[in-house]
């Protein structure tokens, strides 16, 4: 029995010497690992030096005083010269472009003249694609809430673009298949679908300063 007591005492001595970290014998290398996790949220930005663009003189009407068929090209050229750049870090972003008519006064017909000119643009981003790998080609004619793709509600996501600097330049052109027209209801800088505008036909535009807006909305998505 005495020997057993001695043995127990010896065992107790060993136990007291053992570290609390009993995940191994701790007589060689002991290791712990830590996983560091980070989440980088998707972001987008549009960069432009100016939010005001002036068209060259005599861009809105032709020599007959009718709406200039080159109006959309003139607006696109002016926007391309700003330039406007953008970037997105996620890979499923939405892009919507809308525009109002260029209007003067109240934008309504007056004495048989028009005070509004309607046009449509396309915007493209060289290093971004739609999910089906086709060009971005977002047009303005489908109005607010509708991105790339055909039909109301279409919003095909576009891939990430603009990894460095101010991002990638947005390239504007006249939207294929659309025309320029004098409108009879271009009031209030309303950015609507093309079908919401009533074309006034071959009426002349009143002289004056015309203003309008083009709105680009980029929404980031992973």
């Amino acid at each position, binding site marked *: 029995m005495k*020997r057993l007591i*001695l*043995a127990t*005492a*010896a*065992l107790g*001595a*060993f136990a007291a*010497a*053992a*570290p*609390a*970290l*009993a*995940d*191994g*014998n*701790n*007589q*060689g*290398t*002991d*290791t*712990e*690992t*830590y*996983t*560091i*996790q*980070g*989440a*980088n*949220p*998707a*972001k987008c930005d549009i960069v432009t030096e100016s939010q005001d663009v002036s068209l060259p003189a005599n861009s809105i009407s032709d020599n007959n005083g009718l709406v200039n068929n080159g109006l959309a090209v003139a607006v696109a050229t002016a926007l391309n010269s700003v330039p406007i750049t953008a*970037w997105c*870090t*996620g*890979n499923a972003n939405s892009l919507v472009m809308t525009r109002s008519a260029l209007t003067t006064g109240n934008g309504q017909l007056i004495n048989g003249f028009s005070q509004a000119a309607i046009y449509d643009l396309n915007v493209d981003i060289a*290093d971004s694609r739609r999910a089906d790998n086709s060009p971005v080609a977002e047009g303005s004619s489908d109005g607010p809430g509708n991105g790339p793709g055909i039909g109301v509600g279409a919003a095909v996501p576009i*891939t*990430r*673009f*603009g*990894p*460095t*600097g101010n991002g990638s330049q947005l390239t504007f052109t006249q939207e294929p298949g659309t025309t320029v027209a004098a409108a009879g209801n271009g009031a209030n800088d309303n950015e609507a679908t093309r079908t919401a505008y009533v074309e006034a036909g071959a009426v002349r535009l009143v002289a004056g300063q015309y203003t309008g807006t083009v709105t680009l909305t980029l929404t*980031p998505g*992973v």
Partner: protein
Amino acid sequence: MNWGRLPAGLAAVMAVAPAAANSVNATVAIEVIARVVERCGIGATAHTNRPLGMDRVQSFALGFNLDCNTPFRIGVSSRHGALRLVSAADDATMLDGFGIEKPYAVELSFGTDRLGNVVAGSCSSAALRDSQGKCPFFGQAGERSGFSAGAHETAIQRQGQLLISWAAIEGGSRRLVAGDYEDILTVDVVPLL
């Protein structure tokens, strides 16, 4: 009890027992010699493991318990040398022209028995990938590397921590791909026998 796993000192005590069993009045003097073996262990303390936003300044500590009754080395190594996009291919350096790695900083400190709290230093994550980074506490198992608080310094039931931090925006010109990032830090402690 598994006697075969007993330390050598205790095994010697048990070996005497059969010889004494046949004696009636005999006296046996048994010298008990026990040696406290060198041990050094590390165990992570509980911490929340959840992704933190990489677009804002972050600083957080990962704690550990340290129990070394002998002088020791402690080494830290990083698998990727940065927070790396989880979905990136192993050999990728970019994705669509975007960056896929974000560096961060690691500061190592731990308590010791004589010197108190010791700060081993602060290093970039990139310097923890290999010895080329010259980080004073870089170390991997099996290598004679890592940080030693001293040739006679022990740390019995002490605590330590890795202080992790990163900036909101890096100085580089390349944006980071949106997504989940990860790195794995390994901490090794080795008794200096």
